[in-house]
């Protein structure tokens, strides 16, 4: 069986990739995809945690259930995020994040 630590390591890697993508890329769609990556890294962490803290039967459903909720939220987020991207594109004719600086103080 794959040790839980490996799963956590993978999750950390995925999260880092997502975070870097979020911070460094300017394309809004890539940014959204990076967020999905981070969310799924979180899901992996939940599942790993569930495995590590399993009850007497070796099962703990808290992690998987939480992961299901995260998937649900991620779906909503993707729907809203993509709608925002479309609205943004209609305004600016571009999906470059740097074009959105109206709130500069």
């Amino acid at each position, binding site marked *: 069986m794959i040790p839980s630590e490996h799963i956590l390591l993978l999750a950390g890697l995925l999260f880092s990739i997502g975070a870097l993508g*979020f*911070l*460094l890329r300017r394309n809004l769609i890539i940014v959204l995809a990076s967020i999905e990556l981070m969310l799924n890294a979180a899901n992996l962490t939940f599942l790993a945690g569930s495995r590590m803290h399993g009850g007497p039967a070796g099962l703990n459903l808290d992690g998987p259930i939480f992961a299901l909720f995260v998937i649900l939220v991620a779906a909503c987020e993707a729907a809203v995020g993509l709608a925002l991207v479309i609205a943004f594109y209609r305004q600016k004719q571009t999906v470059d994040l740097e074009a*959105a*600086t*109206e*709130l500069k103080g």
Partner: protein
Amino acid sequence: MHINNSLWLMPLLPFLGSIICGLLHFATLRARKRNPDIGAGIGALAAPIGIAAVVGSFIVAVMAWMQLRGLEEAERAAGIVSSAWQWIDLGPFSIDVSMVVDPLSAVMILVICGVGGLIHIYSAGYIKGDPGFAKFFAYLNLFVAMMLMLVLSSNLVGLFVGWEGVGLCSYLLIGFWYDKGWPAEAGQKAFVVNRIGDAAFLIGAFLLIRLFGTLDIADIGAAVVTIVDDPAKLKTLGAATLLLFGGACGKSAQFPLLVWLPDAMAGPTPVSALIHAATMVTAGVYMIVRMNPAFAATPDTLFIVGCVGALTAFIGATSALRQTDIKKVLAYSTVSQLGYMFLGLATGAWAAAVFHLVTHAFFKGLLFLGSGSVIHGMHDEQDMYKMGGLRKYMPKTFITFIAGSAALSGLPLMSGFFSKDEILAHAFSFGGSYMILWAVGLISAALTAFYTWRMVALTFFGPERFDHDHVHPHESPTTMTAPLMVLAVLAVIGGLLGLPPVFHVAHVLENWLEPVTAVGTAVTEHIRAMGGHALHAGHLSHTTEWLLLGLGSLVALVFSHLGFRRYLNGPEPDLNDARRLPGLTGFLGNAWRLDALYDAFIVIPVRLTAQLISSVIDKVLIDGAVNGAAAIARLVGDDTRSLNTGSVRSYAVWMGCGAALLSLLLIWI
């Protein structure tokens, strides 16, 4: 027929009338914009509605009274009770909205609806043509509803609701002609001064809750006997009754809170008659009679009541001597007569106080309405120095006014004679320090006779001092003179309600009120039996009573004669007095300069404090704190605005840094 469920009609009818009249007032305002005649026509509908509402209440009151008369004496004490619903429920402490017609409230509702009805009819003539015609009836009806609430409620909370309600109506009606300026100020003065008394009343009621755990008047009356053995509780009860009396001082214009009543004459005259003579100002007397067991248990409070009453009677009577405004004379007279009622209460003569309350409602209501008729006929002239010789112009007003004056001055066999003498006889029978109160009362009675007939002489006799080119005195319409005549008859024969014992006829009112006053008497008996500090019991032999009656008659006759003769030829004696004794006449004319005292010791200090607070605390401290906070916010904003780059990714960096920081904190701590 059982009246229990119909008791609600009494306050409800005038209340509905008030709402309808109020709506009519708004309709008048709207219609007047388009056509003034239609507006006035709509407004005129208020008179029949307002009158009908009060007459309806009067009919219910009479039916309640008839049913009460048919009850056994024991049942009569409990009265006819009608509970509507539970208003406040706090475990062991609850307050119902409930009404009770017992002998005392029966007397009150008959007076309120009876005299009130007559004054409503009178008002239809008096206030005719005023732009606020419908509004006037709305306020007047609301007043009657509130006054009925006050006297019918079976607990002190309901009584207080009515108490505040009549205060509100009084304020509204004093300031009825608010566009003139000073009536609005007089209304505010009345409201503020009353508020002082109301605060005392409330604290007294809280003390009663603490003592008895209830505010039901009958329950308190029954519970008083159980605490008279406990000196500590008795002391608390003494404080409570004193505070309740403080409330009565405000509402019934007793020293030192009497200053609002003379100013209240700024309102229309029917208002002065109904609210500031016949009904509302007697609420304090009613309340004390209602609470008679509690007061009977605290003779020290009653002695203070007596001192205040006698002093007020004296202040009122002396101040009335120097007034030139006919309504001001009557106002100070009312203050003075209310003082008599409190003097009566002080001797535990509850029935005598109620007797004087009733006769006073008759004759003072009559005198106010009469003065209103004079003012109406003289084109709004109130200065008696500018009247004179009016008896041939307005004969009906004149004759009824004479009847009222005879009753007020206590001429023999008039209603005021019997009621005032009964109070004075009670004070006399107590002896001791009450003797001084009796003497003050007798002197005030002499002064009362004097100023009453001075007023009559100045108004109706002597040379005509008005400008014949501009003023054409005329008799008032029948709507105004008819109520005068009814009240005149009552003012003359009202004494039959309470003939003195020497006449060997039953004292009707005393017997009628017996179930109510018996509780207080029982408390006194109980305290006396256990050797406590009880109210005296006075007894007068028939000879003494005859002597007192004779003395009262003599004083009234002599001083009436003196006052009448002195001013028969006009106000010159007054002017001479003012030249010879400017200090004294000024002192009396300004009602012992009480207003100046209030100005110096309360009004001006309060204003100065307010200015201090406004200029120092408000402007410097509070404004400084608010402006300082705003300045700090702006400063911080200016310095940190560069962080707000508008770039989403820089926010994400900040957020990431924050999350990292929090994680580190979590790990370390």
